[in-house]
């Protein structure tokens, strides 16, 4: 298993990258910054599984919580409204703050 780099409460930024293939990081969340809500465990990398490879070593998976109005500039609702997305570690960088 790959080393777990982030802990709950850490601020992380989703990579803004557009590789081809079976990517489980939604387009809308790429480039956004959020906070790790929990570490879900480690799972075979779906991008590799889709290519008939083992997906190993398993990648840590996080639930990252984003503030809706950070994700959608025209969001209609308060700052308490949030969006939780599962994101694999190799899509995350440490964010400032």
């Amino acid at each position, binding site marked *: 298993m790959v080393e777990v780099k982030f802990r709950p409460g850490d601020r992380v930024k989703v990579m803004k990258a557009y590789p081809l293939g079976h990517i489980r990081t*939604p387009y809308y969340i790429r480039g956004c910054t959020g906070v790790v809500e929990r570490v879900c465990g480690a799972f075979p990398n*779906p991008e590799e599984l889709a290519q008939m490879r083992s997906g190993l070593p398993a990648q840590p998976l996080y639930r990252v919580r984003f503030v809706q109005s950070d994700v959608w500039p025209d969001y209609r609702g308060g700052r*308490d*409204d*949030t*969006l*939780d997305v*599962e*994101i694999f570690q190799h899509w995350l960088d440490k964010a400032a703050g």
Partner: protein
Amino acid sequence: MSELGKYTPLTYFQLMEVSLRELLVEKGVVSDTDVDAVAADMKSRGPERGAKVVARAWTDPAFKRRLLADGTAACVELGLDVPALRLVVVENTPEVHNVIVCTLCSCYPRMLLGLPPDWYKSSNYRKRVVREPRAVLAEFGTRIPDEVAIRVHDSTADMRYMVLPMRPAGTEGWNEERLAGIVSRDAMVGVALAQAT
């Protein structure tokens, strides 16, 4: 030529499913009986399984704590098999309302709710509930007051989510079976509230 009007060709995906299934059967990877058994099993699972979990959580605070800590283990405790996937149960409170979606495809807690409804798989729901959840919920007749935060959960990977609705007023003293009867599929997805009926 008039009969042609009644002929409905298979869609692209239906044709792909039939071709793949027939090929797997022909190669001896699976049998028709296996396929039928899996389909029957999927159809036999319905939201009453999830409702049973909710009713237990409403009546047993210790079970509720375990359910929120580890959804999969708590379901196994009730004799429900939750194959392979990790279940995360999210609790509605007077401060927070949860709603579930899979924007990438149609990941859904099938082991507890059965097959997903068509609207859950529609691109309309998937695109809109992540960016305008209050408007989408209102279309389901569910109006969430502004002071209640909305938390959307996008099931993008290996977790599956179920909402633990709030137990409605007027259900004091009800037993688990009666409580389970008012827990709808939609309440466990988060597009509706549980209501005493």
